[in-house]
């Protein structure tokens, strides 16, 4: 950089004179020949007042931020302990049952991740409708679904079109961090798909349900909480990639037949990681 500057030619006296004259002319033009009009003055005053208010709000927000972040960090720590606790509980239950010569049946999974693996052509109306209701409008779209009798029966209807299973916490987390987009209504009638790049976005929309960070969302989804529907609906359906390494065997067969559609149970985590 320094070399370039020294190479710059020195302006001749004539050029310098011209440059200075032009600058003087420009300066003259900028000064008003007429006193500042009332309307303009009032507009400036209004603008300044608005700026001052906005500044105040911003500063108060910044001042409250460290405490808020600390609260969030504490909560996340609790969540991590909770996830570990769930695992250990399950293990201890199994061992206790085995000690008595019993079997331990864990609670049925409450949440599934559903991935649409077939395209949009030649879909029968009932299947089309159910896929619409699940917001699976495109191939490789994925959503989280609460599992209850109603939804399980719906999944039965669309079995050949989906691969679904029970996601782990890590799977949910990586989905939201890497492919997480939010459904934001910026104006009446305008719904946008906005990437989740800050907690502010989540807080603005899900703050009422006490969900402020991505980890809050993950917790709400993994342990199907009271605000599960809101959280999952806030998320735009995940648009996943094609699976790296390909589908299993023949795509158009059930998972149990060596194909891809149907219930993968916990093996779905593998598929999702490859499609992320």
């Amino acid at each position, binding site marked *: 950089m320094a070399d370039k500057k020294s190479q710059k030619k020195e302006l001749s006296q004539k050029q310098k004179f011209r440059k200075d004259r032009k600058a003087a002319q420009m300066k003259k033009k900028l000064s008003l020949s007429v006193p500042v009009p009332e309307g303009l003055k009032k507009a400036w005053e209004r603008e300044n007042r608005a700026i001052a208010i906005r500044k105040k709000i911003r500063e108060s927000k910044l001042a409250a931020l460290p405490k808020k972040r600390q609260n969030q960090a504490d909560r*996340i720590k609790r969540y991590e302990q909770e996830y570990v606790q769930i695992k250990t509980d399950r293990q201890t239950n199994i061992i206790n049952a085995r000690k008595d010569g019993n079997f331990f049946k864990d609670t049925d999974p409450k949440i599934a991740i559903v991935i649409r693996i077939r395209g949009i052509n030649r879909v029968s109306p009932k299947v089309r409708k159910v896929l619409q209701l699940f917001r699976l409008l495109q191939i490789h779209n994925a959503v989280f679904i609460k599992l209850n009798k109603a939804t399980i029966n719906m999944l039965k209807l669309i079995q050949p079109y989906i691969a679904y299973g029970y996601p782990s916490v890590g799977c949910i987390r990586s989905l939201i961090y890497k492919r997480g987009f939010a459904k934001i209504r910026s104006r009446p009638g305008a719904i946008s798909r906005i990437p989740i790049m800050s907690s502010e976005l989540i807080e603005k929309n899900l703050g009422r349900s006490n969900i402020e960070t991505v980890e809050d969302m993950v917790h709400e989804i993994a342990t199907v909480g009271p605000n599960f529907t809101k959280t999952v609906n806030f998320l735009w359906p995940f648009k996943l990639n094609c699976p790296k390494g390909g589908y299993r065997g023949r795509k158009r067969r059930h998972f149990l037949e060596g194909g891809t559609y149907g219930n993968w149970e916990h093996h779905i985590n593998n598929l999702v990681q490859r499609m992320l």
Partner: protein
Amino acid sequence: VQNREGPHGIRAGHQVAAKSWGTGRAVSRVPRVKGGGTHRAGQGAYANMCRGGRMFAPTKVWRRWHRKINTNQKRYAVCSAVAASAVPALVMARGHRIQAVDEIPLVIEQDFSSVKKTRAALNTLQAFHLSPELRRCKRRYKRAGRGKSRNRRWKHRLGPLIIYAKNDGIAQSVRNIRGVDFCNVYSLNLLKLAPGGHVGRLIIWTEDAFKALNDVYGNNSRNATLKKNYRPPRSIMTNSDLNRIINSQEIQSAINPKRSRKVFEKKRNPLKHPDLYAKLNPLFDQQWQELKKDYKDNAIPSTTRVLKPLKKKQRVMIQLSKEEKEQMKPYWKNVFGDDKIFK
């Protein structure tokens, strides 16, 4: 313009007696001229493709030439054209060079209508800074297209329209200046006020003509004296200076403050950039502040790599004592029984 055109039609091509020879003569079935002794005999006739035949769909005199338009609509149009001529933006948009003109509408003293010499008229127009306008209209040029050979060879730009109340010589003095038109205020011509249907012609009024407009068309408050029961159309806005209205105190004090534009951050993968992950995850943020010091500036690894050692601490390993393992043996016996394969 069709309302003005005289009727016209074509009769050519039927001034022979021609009849088709029919089939069987090794010629086409087109009607042919009768008789003999001349080239013309036996030639095709009548049909549009024949030499000397009539055109396809010959134009007829009984074409509907005139259009009936409601008087009120005609007057509305003239009012609109006159109103548009008072808006400098529209006049400029129509193409007139009015940058130097003092005021629009341009109204000149009454003496102007008794100017007798073209030179005098020209001098007056130049005194009102209309030279650029006249220069624009000075040239005539050849029309583009076939109209050249159809008696519409030359075109020129239209300049100012001079409207007078009484012609004491102005019309004669001005009629030879190319581009300049003239018109009597008591019989305004829409074809001159808005040539080609485009409003905003530059109009030069004489004093009396301008004053006479109130009589010819009336006012917001009173009818036209020279027309029966006619009042000009009402304007949509009484104050059409939008800029002034929007920036007025009354409106500005009632509207919400300007909102800052929402700019959403571009999507980057937090699983690759620990800084972004830290922004989203306050717990990791605390850990990352310390871990950052271990890494140099250029070699920050992906988040997943950073998280690996942290995650290892979370593994769930349940330690079983020897007694507990003994206790579980019957369970496995239940499951596998006497199968020797699994032993």
